[in-house]
């Protein structure tokens, strides 16, 4: 009882790292009748058993504006100590009424509104809408325009996954990698500005092709960016991906099992990280990826648990690598030709009909159902966004995790509330 603490073991073997042993003997500071007090307490507890300390449950409502939430949403939590035991999600704070606004506007303003659906991945909103309208009106898209659309899609995919890295790193608390990644993301946004004139809401696709041809130095700059990002991926791995604190916080946390994925209908990198091979780029040849050779990265479970946060992050990093390969092949096969079949007037009328088109966006499967009745505005435009399935799995995924892991889990699911609320 009165041993002095020894320093036989070295400090690096200590489970807490470099903490030095205290030089004071803490047992000297206890009261003298400590042992008698402990016996009395044991007798008392035997007569009146302690109630389990888990009887009190805390209810906590995390409101619309909070730093740990990705956007405006309300989380009602029931906490059992520090472990979450129940959860319910409410969204709807970013409802813009996009679908009604599209019914009141002419057909030519469908594209500018559609890239406000999910502002980070604006090209995919335009792409899914243009594909649906071209199916209704039987418009042919020339091959050069198709390749330009694919180049823009893959650049947006790289930019979206880099932005995911920034959000995940901020939630974990490592701010170093944030500035490195944002510096490289600016180079991609500069490319968008070179081609279309605007960094985010591009408004570049048209029914039947794209708005303008590629400028002179564009293809060379795309190849430069590919080389740059390939080198930078190694740098991010050195700084962040296998960092001790990051792996400790993300190995084995919030594992998404396969039955939950199939029950909620989750698609995209979240599903691929748990081992499901589902990618629209490979399974649906209408998108135009059939002549390009690339692999679909799926989670490998290096941490021991397949489908945890680290797997979801690694799948997206590997997708960046694959997008670079796709971009290199696209710049080789781009054919000469038209970029737009026929320039349509501002007050065109699309014939009666309907169509449902699907695209593989960086968050998952994005779909659009358009109904046209032959007049100057669409009858119904309905978007099927991938975030709505990711939000559905939250009340089943979160119970069991600790409250300090909550921001990391929410950031790892890649929730785009702006597109879920439309």
């Amino acid at each position, binding site marked *: 009882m009165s041993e002095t603490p020894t320093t036989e073991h070295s400090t690096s073997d200590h489970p807490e790292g470099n903490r030095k042993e205290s030089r004071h003997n803490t047992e000297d500071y206890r009261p003298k009748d400590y042992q008698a007090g402990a016996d009395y307490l044991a007798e008392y507890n035997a007569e009146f058993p302690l109630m389990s300390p888990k009887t009190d449950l805390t209810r906590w409502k995390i409101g619309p504006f909070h730093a740990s939430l990705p956007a405006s949403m309300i989380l009602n939590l029931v906490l059992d100590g520090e472990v979450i035991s129940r959860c319910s*999600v409410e969204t709807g704070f970013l409802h813009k009424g996009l679908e009604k606004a599209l019914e009141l506007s002419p057909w030519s303003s469908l594209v500018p509104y559609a890239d406000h659906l999910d502002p980070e991945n604006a090209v995919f909103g335009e792409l899914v809408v243009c594909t649906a309208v071209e199916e209704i009106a039987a418009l042919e898209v020339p091959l050069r325009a198709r390749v330009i659309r694919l180049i823009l899609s893959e650049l947006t995919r790289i930019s979206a996954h880099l932005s995911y890295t920034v959000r995940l790193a901020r939630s974990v608390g490592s701010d170093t990698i944030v500035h490195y990644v944002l510096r490289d993301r600016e180079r991609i946004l500069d490319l968008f500005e070179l081609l279309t004139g605007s960094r985010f809401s591009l408004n570049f696709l048209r029914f039947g092709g794209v708005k303008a041809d590629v400028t002179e130095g564009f293809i060379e700059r795309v190849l430069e960016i590919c080389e740059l990002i390939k080198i930078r991926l190694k740098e991010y791995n050195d700084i962040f991906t296998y960092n001790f604190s990051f792996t400790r916080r993300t190995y084995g946390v919030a594992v998404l099992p396969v039955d939950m994925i199939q029950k909620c209908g989750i698609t995209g990198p979240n599903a691929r990280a748990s081992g499901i091979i589902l990618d629209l780029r490979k399974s649906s040849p209408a998108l135009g990826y059939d002549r390009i050779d690339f692999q679909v990265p799926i989670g490998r479970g290096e941490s021991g648990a397949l489908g945890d946060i680290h797997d979801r992050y690694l799948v997206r990093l590997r997708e960046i690598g694959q997008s670079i390969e796709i971009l290199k092949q696209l710049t080789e096969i781009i054919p000469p030709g038209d970029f737009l079949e026929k320039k349509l007037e501002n007050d065109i009328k699309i014939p009666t009909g309907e*169509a*449902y088109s699907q695209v593989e966006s960086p968050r998952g*499967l994005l779909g659009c159902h358009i109904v046209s009745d032959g007049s100057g505005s669409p*009858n119904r435009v309905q978007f099927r966004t991938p975030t709505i399935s990711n939000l559905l799995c939250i009340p089943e995924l979160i119970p069991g995790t600790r409250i300090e892991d909550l921001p990391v889990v929410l950031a790892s699911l890649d929730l785009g509330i702006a597109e879920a609320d439309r």
Partner: protein
Amino acid sequence: MEKTLLSQHLNRLLKDKVLEIVPFGRSSLMTVWIEAKSLLEVSRILKEDPELCLDWLENLSVAQLDQMFAVSYFLRSYRKQNSLVLRLSAVPQNMKSKIKIDSIASFWPMGRPMELEAEDLFGVHFEKTKAEKLEKSEKQKDDRASRDGGDAIREGEFQPKLLPSGWGGYPLRKNYVFPGRQ
């Protein structure tokens, strides 16, 4: 599955519940029109058939054409390459009243948030069956977390409440007048 094979298979499975099988626009999808009252039986048959195996509801969309509301279910399969569009039509009594349709959330749970959104925006109310409602209230009685007083959080729900409470009218209907413009 090929188109002709698929329509023959569906006609054999569903017999008299099918009103019509037509192609969907210009694509290779098939649309199956059914009546609203046979929705639950048809969904069970389509989900449990070993050849079709349609266990993924990708999209649920409601559209209004004149007085008629058309509800479309876009179904897919995880294991096989089948896909299908299931459609039914409903007419309300007048343009301000609700429409009641059975809910398919017991077969395809991923469709529940889309049903809640359609209820907010169009006034199409998807009703749970009586068996589901009883099961849920019994579950909540035993649960310790519901004994904490105040209003209980409903067990694990995602509620996309797009409109604030007390909003009058259904915005996406064609006769909706914007607030402040009479």
